[in-house]
């Protein structure tokens, strides 16, 4: 076990972190699956409208890679299949009825340890939970054809308001160990479990078997898997590494031990626009519309719901559902406040990591903040240089990776290390950018271009 201290990055103290308690969310009678969640796949339907499905039964598969399937999160009747432009399947809705489950092999912990790669992969693929394992480079669902040189389990979250595995693992320790054991079958290399060195971690994590445990400490993004990979098992552009979040591994463990696709998962809910007392963890049905259970918890202002963290997460649509990969939501107030002569004000009440306002000089960075979604300025060309590097703990020259992508020079971008990163790793740099550049979007596009062209 090694401990790493990361210096570069940013910690903001924010109001509204979720309290470590778990509540049950009210259940909805309909659930939905949104295939575009699974990235650039060509959906071929396995069910028709009106079909009766069991929980865990295949709803569709990927035309390019038929082994990749999407399964029903609940038993019931398929009431609608919504198609978008060019007949892309946008949404499959199921009216929940009963709880018939599609049976998968039920393995006890010892059986998991004895299973072979093909067996584990088969269950993951058929159940659709392979989606929870992500593949580097590009951060897509793990490709069963590939052999990862190692697997990284991320047991920490330095992003604001992110769920803490220590809260979720209580009572599910065996499922977690089973998940780790299953991962060891999938790679000839090591399985790494990376934990937050600044927290008191549960014994089930620190004493986990069959994985190498390491701790990381420091400001966000020290909890990002890219940082862990760079320190423990650096990637060449041709290497494949699989990654999985510890909170997602609980779902995989559940599948293996119980022989059924889990119907529920635990998600965190935080952020300044969530009412006090409602900021905690909820057990929700997968596929459940977000509106039904979220809305009563929010304060009555214009809000924005984000899946994931406020730096790199994605804005949730009004009719969105709890997706397979969701493990937390953050709600911010849409902030359209305008400041009189903001460029000239001393800025006592402005949050800034720059020292161009007075608040950082007066201990502002140590205060607790309730940030909103105001962009605080308009998009401008890149002017200040060297600023991003303060927030990039990887050996990456952010300015130049961004420039290479903007110039469509994918070869240079690869040489500069873009494949070792995901868009999320640039989110803190983008937060601090005075030109308000869309670094996350630029890197995402760069990675997509490389993925399309091939390395």
């Amino acid at each position, binding site marked *: 076990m090694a401990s790493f201290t990361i210096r570069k990055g940013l910690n903001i103290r924010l109001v509204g972190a979720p309290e470590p308690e778990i509540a049950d969310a009210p259940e909805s009678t309909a659930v939905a699956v949104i295939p575009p969640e699974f990235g650039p796949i060509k959906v071929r339907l396995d069910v028709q409208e009106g079909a009766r499905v069991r929980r865990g039964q295949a709803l569709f598969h990927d035309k390019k890679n038929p082994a990749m399937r999407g399964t029903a999160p609940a038993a019931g009747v398929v009431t609608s299949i919504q198609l978008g432009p060019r007949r892309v399947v946008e949404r499959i809705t199921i009216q929940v009825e009963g709880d018939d489950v599609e049976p998968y092999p039920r393995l006890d912990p010892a059986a998991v340890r004895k299973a072979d790669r093909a067996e584990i992969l088969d269950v993951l693929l058929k159940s659709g939970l392979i989606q929870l394992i992500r593949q580097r480079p590009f951060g897509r669902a793990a490709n069963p054809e590939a052999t990862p040189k190692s697997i990284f389990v991320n047991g920490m979250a330095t992003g604001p308001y992110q769920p803490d595995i220590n809260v979720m693992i209580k009572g599910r320790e065996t499922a977690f160990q089973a998940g780790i054991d299953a991962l060891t079958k999938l790679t000839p290399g090591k399985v790494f479990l990376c934990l937050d060195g600044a927290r008191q971690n549960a014994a089930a994590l620190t004493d986990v078997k069959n994985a190498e445990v390491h701790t990381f400490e420091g400001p966000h993004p020290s909890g990002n898997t890219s940082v862990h990979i760079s320190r423990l098992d650096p990637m060449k552009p041709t290497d494949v590494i699989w990654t999985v979040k510890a909170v997602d591994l609980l779902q995989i463990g559940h599948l293996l031990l119980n022989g059924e696709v889990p119907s529920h998962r635990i998600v965190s809910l935080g952020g300044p626009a969530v009412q006090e007392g409602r900021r905690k963890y909820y057990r929700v049905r997968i596929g459940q519309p977000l509106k039904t259970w979220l809305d009563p918890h929010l304060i009555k202002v214009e809000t924005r719901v984000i899946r994931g963290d406020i730096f790199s997460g994605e804005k949730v649509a009004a009719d969105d559902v709890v997706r397979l990969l969701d493990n937390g939501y953050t709600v911010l107030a849409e902030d359209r406040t305008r400041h009189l002569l903001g460029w000239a004000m001393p800025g006592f009440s402005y949050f800034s990591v720059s020292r161009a306002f007075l608040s950082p000089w007066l201990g502002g960075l140590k205060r607790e903040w309730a940030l909103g979604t105001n962009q605080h300025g308009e998009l401008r060309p890149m002017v200040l240089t060297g600023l991003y590097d303060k927030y990039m703990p990887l050996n990456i020259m952010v300015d130049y990776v961004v420039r290479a992508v903007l110039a469509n020079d994918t070869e240079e971008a690869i040489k500069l290390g873009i494949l070792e990163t995901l868009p999320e790793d640039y989110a803190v740099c983008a937060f601090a950018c*005075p*030109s308000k550049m869309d670094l996350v979007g630029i890197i995402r596009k760069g990675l997509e271009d490389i993925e399309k062209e091939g390395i």
Partner: protein
Amino acid sequence: MKAFLEKHLEKIRPLFLPGGKFERLYPLHEANETFLLTPAEVTHGPPHVRDQLDLKRTMIMVVFALIPATLFGIFNAGYQHNLAHQVAGATFWDHFFKGLAICLPIILTSYAVGGFWEVLFAIVRKHPISEGFLVSGLLFPLTLPPTIPLWQVALGITFGIVIGKEIFGGTGFNVLNPALTARAFLYFAYPAQISGDKVWVSGPDGFTYATPLGIGMVPHAGETITETLEKAGFTFEKMLIGLEPGSIGETSVIACLIGAAILVLSGIGSWRIMVGGVLGLIFGSYLMQAIGSPNLKPLVDLPFWYHMVIGSFAFGIVFMATDPVSAAATNAGKWIYGFLIGFLILVIRVANPAYPEAVMLAILFMNVMAPLIDHYVVQAHIKRRARHVYA
């Protein structure tokens, strides 16, 4: 006040939107609006929260940093004027208001003409009006002698904004520092009004006043160069404070140091470039003294701390070399870039027989070299990365 402005701006906004009466003037409206009130724009995607710092504030910080040099320059212009005209009993405020009368038209001309081009390009190119011009518009007049004809100010800033910046695509894309480009243009087009012994003080007709660098051009037998300077009235302290003739903003090293402190503490100016520049100058000074060829000017014997207070070294290294767009962008590159500027300034000062001052040329030359420096830094980074990953 705020509510009234918000309402009023909201009301006139449609006039500038597509289909409105003044559709083409949208950038002007936008500049006005965001000058009065910060924009209401919310983030479009990740990150969903953003730092309060924007480019407007960034640029304004540079203007703030220039204020001490500007105020002192104004005072000094008046002080030198009154000295040359032998005005008796002039008070601080007499000097200041005289200086204001001399300098304000220059600064206003620079802002007005520069602003005109900036707005014109913004409207034609349909891009927002860049805040960068607030800096260039003030930097440029501060590099000019107080006697500069206003039409030359107008011509210079036109050249700087149009050729130095806009033809490359505007702020963020320019290779050269626009203010220095403007000054270099005047320097070569109209040398009589921007160099020599006559231009530095708005004195009576035919009044000459050699600058320390001019004095250092010619040898004086039997005394050290510092003695020669002291005889001419240029003591170290005087030049540090800045009560000597020169371009409007550059004489006071103390004012430049205050500016440097504002830039570095606010994190907007690169301390690497500044420190690199100082180190380069010191290194150059010792190196040239060690070489000690008879072809060098007497300035070679001047200790390096004199070189730092003479001419526009302090102003150039603090405000011109640190322009992030035209400087090197990598951290290692900034050290090299700053160091070479300091070094070149010294070498040109002591070795070039034609130009007494070298700051402008050294910085412009390094502006051109900056991408090359960065290129090598990035290539070295790629090599190091490869070693780390493949090891």
